[in-house]
């Protein structure tokens, strides 16, 4: 009975939850109404029928609903029809949780919890079978009291809070009492119903499940529902009373109820039950051979349409024997060949298997372009030419030389991988077994060669790639052909220089002579023999002086060449600058002891004096390079062997020498003065440094990318620099643009020896060991935005090569578009326009 009550409550709770948001009070009131109906059967049906109908609706399995419907309660039934079926199951659990938390609905909480317990018990029993039910019944007898406790408490408390429920209970109890001898059925709840009734009856003490020893010292054993003490009766009895009790004829069937401190006399039914259990008989009234009624999971009495219990483990295991046997049978049949697995399929299938069907049958259908990877189709093989013919035209056959060459060639470089042969008839054509290998190689190419797509430029005209340049003819004048040769040197001419007025050409050679030539007549007017090879000659660029500086071994000599026979021809400025200043000399010399100035005087050097040698400057190392400042008072020398102090600046009028760089890491090769500013260019092997002489600081560092600089030159306007290197490069720098080359020209085939600018015309030239002198038009615009225009004009190639040395030095005429060159063939040549 307890069960039925609980179910009704449960439904109430659930409906409440479902309709929670809509109308709580109504939902609550409805079950109350149903519960308050006088007949208990009515309530049960009310509570069950909707549930059962719902379950049928949900599961659609069960055919019969073993519940009698009461017509009176159809209204309520309809109400339950509102329950959202989908939410019904899922919200079960939530119900409990939420209601446990909610203290306001105390009565319903208790009931629902209790209900759940009961439900689970019934569940167990259902599955466990009859034996278990019997066992439990025994248990319930043994632990009679404790079970009673909880039951009684719950019922009492509920009755205290709501009168309606208590009335139902009472009616329930009444019912029990009315029909005590009801038949045993298959309903597993029947025991509980009966037990509950007895519990309800005897349950008075409400102390709950606490140790009874706590009440040992008191007179009372606990409290009833109203809070009144329940006084001890039995336990207070002394041994005499107990003895007296034994006199009672029912004593043998009297049991002591500890909790209530009462004595209970077992009824005849109870005794019969116990007796049958003891004798291992069925419970009296139980029909063990009743028709089996499989409730399944959806027992009509179950309160939920689907149960909530976890799926038992056994349901995951195959149902043993039958399946195994079947498998065994089949495997044997297969093994023995009774069952043939792959019978020959239908005709269509066979065709499909053999590939006899149209693979591209659905070709016409427009398909979405699959996101395939773009494959690059393999290039087709080259088709054979006339050479491959078995009977080629005779000119395609290889002659003896070609045959030899063919055999010597690397197989990969051969124009064709066979020797062309001519056969007079097809019959004579032999087997070509290499075809297998060729096909194999093609196969390898197909799957091992990386493929890329390239835009191939089909062109036979290479001039398409040439840059368009202004025609050289439009850029005249420039030196275009050789006019004069200056012959007289016996060894290579290392250095040449032209006087500022363009009249004289000085040359220094490896035959240890310095010669001065008249340009117009090609006559050698002056020759001076020195101790060793002449490294460098340089005219003073200032036209008011008539001074030539010559560097050889570790000496520099300053000459005023007596070109017209007497020294009186020399300008007074020359004399003035060459006279030794009386003072300061000592201090200067102290500054740099390594360099010594000597005035050429005395009888022993009369010869030299005669030749116009005025000053000797002794260096510690070989002087390789000499450059004048445009004003003619300073000149700088480099002697790369000296290392860190290779650069020296000499002051002619003061006869002083400075070495401005003390800590240059790499030996400096070439120096140049800026044509009109106090700026100094120093080039070491691969970097050109630009210094401001006034501020004594580094302005720029030009990164050439060249490995070994041979020479540099500064444009007359001073903003552009060209550089030539031994690694065949010629670079043009625009100082305003960048520290990197504006243009790198890579046209020389051998080391570049010298690069120079024309002092007045927009020309520059470079010479190299490949015997060529390249003359360029190098126009520098005043407009800063316009880059310099570089146009190749002429390649002059008349020198001869000796010991892989070509043209060693070039120099432009100061006014004319002429260029002088000196070469290893000991000639000096003049090219004119």
């Amino acid at each position, binding site marked *: 009975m307890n069960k039925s009550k609980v179910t009704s409550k449960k439904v109430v709770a659930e409906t409440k939850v479902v309709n929670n948001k809509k109308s709580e009070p109504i939902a609550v009131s409805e079950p109350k109404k149903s519960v308050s109906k006088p007949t208990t059967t009515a309530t049960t049906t009310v509570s069950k029928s909707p549930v059962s109908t719902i379950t049928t609706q949900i599961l659609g399995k069960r055919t019969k609903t073993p519940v009698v419907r009461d017509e009176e309660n159809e209204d309520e039934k309809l109400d339950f029809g509102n329950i959202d079926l989908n939410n019904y199951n899922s919200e079960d659990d939530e119900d409990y949780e939420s209601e446990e938390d909610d203290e306001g609905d105390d009565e319903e909480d208790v009931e629902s919890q209790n209900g759940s317990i009961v439900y689970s018990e019934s569940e167990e029993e259902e599955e466990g079978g009859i034996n278990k039910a019997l066992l439990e019944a025994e248990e319930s007898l043994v632990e009679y009291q404790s079970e009673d406790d909880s039951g009684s408490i719950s019922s009492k408390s509920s009755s205290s809070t709501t009168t309606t429920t208590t009335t139902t209970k009472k009616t329930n109890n009444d019912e029990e009492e009315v029909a005590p001898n009801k038949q045993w059925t298959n309903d597993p709840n029947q025991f509980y119903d009966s037990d509950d009734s007895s519990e309800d009856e005897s349950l008075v003490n409400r102390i709950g499940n606490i140790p009874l020893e706590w009440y040992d010292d008191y007179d009372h054993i606990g409290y009833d529902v109203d809070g009144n003490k329940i006084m001890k009766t039995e336990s207070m009895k002394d041994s005499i009373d107990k003895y007296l009790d034994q006199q009672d004829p029912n004593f043998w069937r009297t049991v002591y109820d500890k909790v209530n401190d009462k004595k209970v006399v077992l009824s005849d039914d109870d005794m019969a039950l116990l007796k049958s259990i003891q004798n291992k008989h069925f419970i009296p009234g139980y029909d063990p051979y009743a028709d089996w009624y499989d409730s399944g999971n959806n027992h009509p009495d179950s309160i939920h349409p689907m149960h909530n219990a976890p799926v038992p483990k056994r349901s995951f295991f195959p149902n043993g024997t039958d399946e195994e046997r079947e498998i065994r049978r089949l495997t044997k049949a297969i093994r023995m060949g009774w069952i043939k697995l792959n019978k020959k399929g239908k005709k269509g299938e066979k065709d499909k298997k*053999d590939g*006899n069907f149209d*693979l591209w049958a659905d070709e016409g259908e427009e398909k979405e372009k699959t996101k395939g990877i773009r494959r690059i189709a393999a290039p087709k093989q080259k088709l054979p030419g006339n050479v491959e013919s078995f009977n080629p035209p005779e000119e395609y056959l290889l002659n003896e030389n070609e045959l030899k060459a063919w055999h010597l060639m690397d197989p990969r470089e051969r124009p064709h991988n066979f020797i062309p042969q001519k056969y007079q008839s097809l019959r004579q054509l032999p087997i070509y077994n290499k075809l297998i290998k060729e096909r194999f190689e093609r196969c390898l190419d197909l*799957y091992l060669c990386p493929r890329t797509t390239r835009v191939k430029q089909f062109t036979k005209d*290479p001039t398409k790639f040439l840059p368009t340049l202004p025609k050289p003819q439009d850029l005249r004048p420039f030196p275009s052909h050789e006019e004069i040769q200056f012959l007289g040197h016996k060894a290579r001419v290392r250095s040449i220089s032209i006087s500022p007025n363009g009249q004289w050409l000085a040359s220094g050679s490896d035959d240890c002579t310095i010669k001065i030539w008249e340009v117009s007549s090609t006559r050698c007017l002056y020759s001076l023999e020195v101790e060793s090879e002449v490294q460098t000659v340089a005219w003073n660029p200032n036209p008011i002086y008539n001074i030539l500086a010559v560097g050889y071994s570790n000496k520099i000599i300053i000459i005023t060449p007596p070109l017209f026979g007497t020294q009186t021809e020399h300008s007074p400025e020359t004399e003035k600058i060459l006279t030794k200043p009386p003072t300061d000399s000592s201090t200067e010399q102290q500054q740099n002891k390594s360099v010594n100035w000597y005035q050429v005087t005395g009888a022993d050097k009369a010869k030299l004096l005669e030749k116009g040698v005025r000053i000797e400057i002794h260096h510690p190392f070989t002087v390789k390079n000499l450059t004048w400042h445009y004003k003619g008072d300073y000149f700088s020398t480099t002697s790369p062997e000296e290392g860190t102090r290779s650069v020296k600046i000499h002051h002619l009028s003061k006869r002083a020498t400075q070495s401005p760089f003390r800590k240059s890491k790499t030996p400096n090769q070439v120096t140049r003065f800026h044509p009109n500013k106090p700026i100094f260019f120093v080039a070491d092997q691969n970097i050109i440094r630009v210094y401001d002489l006034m501020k004594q600081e580094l302005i720029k560092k030009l990164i050439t990318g060249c490995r070994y600089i041979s020479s540099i030159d500064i444009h007359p306007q001073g903003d552009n620099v060209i550089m030539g290197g031994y690694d065949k490069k010629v670079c043009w720098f625009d100082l305003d643009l960048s520290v990197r080359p504006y243009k790198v020209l890579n046209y020389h085939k051998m080391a570049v020896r010298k690069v120079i600018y024309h002092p007045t015309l927009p020309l520059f030239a470079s010479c190299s060991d490949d015997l060529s002198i390249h003359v360029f038009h190098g126009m520098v615009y005043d407009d800063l935005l316009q880059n310099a225009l570089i146009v190749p004009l002429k390649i002059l190639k008349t020198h001869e090569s000796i010991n892989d040395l070509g043209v060693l030095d070039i120099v432009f005429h100061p006014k004319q578009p002429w260029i002088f060159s000196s070469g290893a063939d000991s000639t000096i040549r003049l090219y004119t326009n």
Partner: protein
Amino acid sequence: MGGIKKFKKGEKGENLKFITRNEAVKKLQISLKIFRKLCILKGIHPRDPKKKFKGKHKTYYYSKDIKYLQNEKVLEIIRARKVFKDREKKLINKKQFGALKNLKENRPMITLDHIIKERYPTFQDALKDLDDCLSLIHLFANMDASAKVRENQILACERLAREFQYYIIQSKSLRKVFVSVKGVYYQADVMGETITWITPLNYLSKKEKEVDYGVMISFLEFYQALMKFVNYRLFTSIGLTYPPTIDDAKLRKCDSLINIFESKPQQQTKTNNTTKKSKSTTAAAAATTPVDPKLKKLEEKISKINSKEEKEIKEQIVEEDTNMLQVNSSGISKDFEDLVGNESDNIPKIMDVTTLFKGFHFYISREVPRHMLEFVILSFGGRVSFPGSGDKVKEVNQSITHQIVDRSNSVKVHNTREYIQPQWVFDSVNSKLLLPYSEYTIGVIPPAHLSPFVEYEEDSYIPARKQALDALINSKEFADAKINTNAEQDDDNDNDNDNRKQVDSDGESDDEDDEDLEHLETRYTEELRKEQSKKRKSSEVDDDDEEEEDGEEDGEEEEEEEDGEEESESESESEQVAKPVLTKKQRDELNKQKQAEEDTKLAELMIRKKDKWIYNKVKETNQQRATANQTLLEKRNKVESGKDVNGNVKVAPQPKKPAPLVKKSQQKQQQASKKQKK
């Protein structure tokens, strides 16, 4: 939504697109061998990434390719096969042969149709990529079975090759043939796609040592599958059933290409039963043309087995087949035959290419490689017989119009037919006209066999034979246009049966009126040739002259002013005279040229680094081509002057009889043209 997502190294970018081979193999968890095979089947090829992140000397694959490979069906099957092999081994060791047999029936088989569909979404795509496929299949079809190459594979290849050839014959899509030292190249035009393939001329029995046959067989597997689908499509496209029933016995006996195919066009077999009942009987009675012996056999068998009524029906079918055979191989009536014989030598016709040999019956001698010739002749509409062929046409058969011989000492027995060397067939096919037989008869060294694949450009070297052929073609075109006017000439030859005699008579029996003119013309042409050859020697660079007759005729008029008879002297004189003129006139030009050269030289200095490479390359190739042409010309001059390539005088130059004949034929045309002009 948060900032920009930061990627770790190797999470994004170009380097993820590519994967090295080793990485790929690791990712797929397969061996390198299987990886290779998969690559072959799937057509996956290495890529060439711009930046090689993982080393310069590694092979890179597209990582998407490898990703797709991971889900490849074939890969699964390969794995299954591995398991299968283990099981097989186990069963063998246990000696459970019954189980083994059952296991073998379930051997996982690799199917490639999905891969083919994926690689070639359309049929045209497949055709585009058929070159290598055909070459390899034909190669294997002509190879010897060994441990590495199984016999059934070779047979399958042979079958596929024959099927394809059969299609080519039926669809008449062969275009070019080229016999090279390596093998025979065929070019066909299949559904608008040009397909070229090579077949070995002979049977290759030796094995190459440096060849990995495994790789080739992997390719072959794929190609076989592809070929099958392609053949299916091709066969069905011309109304044939596929697979055709091939008589294996005949295939083994190397029977005629057509004979081995039992299948007939579907449409025709359909019509067989319905129509021509009455006709068939008459046709059977009047069947003078040789009947397929196989069909005869069939007939006999049927007659034995079946009742008379049935027999009748069968007969009909057979006769239909014979009719069809007539259509295919064009049975020739005797009257027509004569016509064919007559029009042969003098005026070759330019015809529709596919029907070049229509009406011809070729008899292929024993020494001639038969398959090749048979294939070519059949695909150009001819009919073929050979010793031992199924149709049992004897060498003496009157219907034979041409006999192909390849022996210089064989004798002409029959006057009714042309004796030609096999090269005639190829050259005729390539030049799309029937060339004069005289150049290819017995005992004659045939003219050079040129590659039909070469495209001659302005600056390329043109061999003399090509020029001659071009001239011939031009003249044919001209002759075709004017064929009516020249018809009289042909009438003379109609009665002659002996073609040899025809040739001779052609030279002799020309009309007297024309003789003088001809004589003049021959002289002219000879002079012209000499002049041209000299010009070539003097200035080989500008070699624009071709021996086209129109050009010659134009040239004649100009040069007629000079004395034609004093050939060499006048030439040298003229040169001497010309020199001062040249110096005066051309000085400026020379200077200009020099100037231009210099300009380019200077411009080269300023060329951009990027362009420099390609510029040099182009220049180099031009140079190479020029030198190659130069050497060829030099050699040709030597050869023309009667020496061999090495400059030695030939020991025994065989008499070139046909040469004047050719000239005569040319002269005739010239004559005709002159007549026309007049």
